[in-house]
């Protein structure tokens, strides 16, 4: 006789959110928001800014092995290729540890951790732990993917488990057709402007509604990526036919499973967004929730436009920019830096002519990786300089000088801005 689930045995029906479902599966028992659980981890990774410390923490714990070497990945994506000898030494330190433990390395030039694991590793229903705040990108595939520090990543690598508090969930329902010139980036910037940079702290965001159902994987990743900018632990999407077809494209059809929340799950609150009312949206310095629509932005001259990063470094992002820039030149007083999210994306943009269009218009192409977003190389800002970037974050000094200014917008806004040399509305070009 089948024993039935806890709720069946109790004779009551209590629906679950996506976060509760995934954490319950991994905890081996039914768990609810507010509970502390120790769960097994499906995949753990670090990047070159957090990996060396994670390795030292494993060593300090007196441990010499990792729990699952095939699912432990060291990414070299921030200093890629390394601009300083200290960072080259860090890379070698991680290469040595990976070799000794049989762990995986994603080498210089292969791309941003979150993009590469989305292409190759992350499955709906997984728990993914990354020592990088934008690990939440994996939520686009229906995985409980969350960022942690180096010590938590070290424990996940060494023991194959982590403790987590089961988060309460805020349901974000987006309905209606997106107007021309308005994209996933505008949805998430609008949401963060509305609920603030602390509005989702310790919570799960769970996305639904017909706009979300119709959104391609690239757009879902843009939204999931920025869940952390609202303070959230994860930004979860149900997996569906779009997830299935994307995994098929990646040659991973066997990794698909359908996963959705119960219709009667308990939510802390619901935020409704009407897509048809959205406009191109900009986050102004120095906080992501300092948002304005492009109509309200006024005259902001721009020294550098930056297209790429874990938020908007996918083929679709480069294609929309190329559509706007086709046959046009970048403003003579503005430079445009473009960085594909991964080697796969880079090859796609080369094969379909997208990159050629961008370069012909005057853009500079960089090695796949995190590029200029972290202020390390490939587009560091000077005193007083202004950048319009598609990256997820605009904190003071992030891209270089603490006296520089970072505005965030969609790839379409980036392209229009590159043409005009000031923050510009993409709608007139589409």
């Amino acid at each position, binding site marked *: 006789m089948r024993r039935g689930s806890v709720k069946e045995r109790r004779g009551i029906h209590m629906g679950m959110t996506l976060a509760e479902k995934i954490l319950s599966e991994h905890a081996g028992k039914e768990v609810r928001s507010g509970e*502390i*659980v*120790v769960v097994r981890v499906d995949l753990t990774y670090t990047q070159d*800014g*957090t990996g*060396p*410390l994670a390795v030292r*923490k494993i060593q*300090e*714990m*007196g*441990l010499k092995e990792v729990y699952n070497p095939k699912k432990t990945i060291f990414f070299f994506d*921030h*200093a890629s290729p390394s601009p*300083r000898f*200290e*960072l080259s*030494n*860090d890379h070698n*330190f991680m290469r040595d540890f990976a070799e000794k433990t049989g762990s995986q390395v994603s080498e210089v030039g292969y791309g941003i951790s979150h993009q590469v694991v989305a292409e190759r590793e992350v499955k709906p229903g997984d728990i993914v732990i990354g*020592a*990088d*705040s934008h*690990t939440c990108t994996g939520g686009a595939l229906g995985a409980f993917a969350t*960022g*942690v*520090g*180096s*010590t*938590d990543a*070290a*424990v996940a690598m*060494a*023991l194959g*488990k*982590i*403790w987590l*508090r089961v988060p309460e969930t805020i349901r974000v329902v987006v309905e209606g057709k997106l107007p021309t010139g308005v994209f996933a980036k505008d949805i998430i910037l609008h949401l963060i402007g509305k609920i603030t*940079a*602390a509005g989702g*702290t*310790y919570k799960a965001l769970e996305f639904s509604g017909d706009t979300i159902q119709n959104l391609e994987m690239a757009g879902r990743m843009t939204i999931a990526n920025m869940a*952390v900018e609202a*303070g959230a*632990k994860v930004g979860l999407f149900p997996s569906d036919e779009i997830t299935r077809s994307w995994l098929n494209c990646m040659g991973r059809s066997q990794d698909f499973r359908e996963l959705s929340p119960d219709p009667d799950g308990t939510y802390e609150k619901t935020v409704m967004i009407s897509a048809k009312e959205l406009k191109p949206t900009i986050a102004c310095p120095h*906080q992501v929730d300092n948002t304005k629509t492009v109509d309200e932005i006024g005259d902001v001259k721009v020294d550098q436009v930056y297209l790429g990063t874990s938020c908007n470094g996918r083929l679709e992002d480069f294609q929309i920019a190329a559509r706007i820039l086709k046959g046009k030149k970048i403003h003579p007083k503005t430079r445009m830096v473009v960085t594909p999210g991964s080697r796969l994306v880079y090859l796609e943009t080369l094969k379909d002519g997208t990159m050629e269009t961008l370069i012909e218009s005057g853009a500079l192409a960089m090695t796949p990786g995190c590029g200029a977003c*972290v*202020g*390390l190389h490939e587009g*560091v800002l000077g005193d007083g300089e202004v950048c319009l970037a598609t990256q997820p*974050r605009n*904190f*003071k*000094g*992030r891209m*270089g000088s*603490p006296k520089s200014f970072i505005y965030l917008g969609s790839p379409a806004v980036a392209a229009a801005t590159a043409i005009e040399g000031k923050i510009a509305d993409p709608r007139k070009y589409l």
Partner: protein
Amino acid sequence: MKGKAWKFGDAISTDHIIPGRYFYLRSNLPELSKHLLEYERPSFIEKVSPGDFIVAGQNFGLGSSREHAAIVIKMNGIQAVLAKSFARIFYRNCFNNGLPAIICDTEKFSEGDEIELFVHEGKIVNYTRNETTLFTAVPPVMKRILSDGGLVEHVKKYKDLKLV
């Protein structure tokens, strides 16, 4: 141990605490720690004394997961961070390194106030104002990590996660 309060505002990110431009110093923590909050408050590390407190507003530690932010705070002798709220990754990073992150009404403290933290009693005594502030209890799992001296020490002790 008593210490002095150093006040900061809302939304102090890990980029403010230790900027990305010092990325190359992350494997050289003594050098990295010299840049703690340097743009928010020039020469901060020369002003603080062991046992002092960082006292901030909302959403302290938002942004990048860099654990170095919590580590350089501790390396500079800061006893604890008090804030109205914390970003979640930073919050975990503090306790993992044995640095208490205390959620409380920080309007009760002014720059330079002499204060003392009693983690287990859930109170902070402000000797300058002659006032006691009670705070939201530290979650049991965090208390456990703190009492073991951080997560590394915990794992060394149990060879496992024994938190639940």
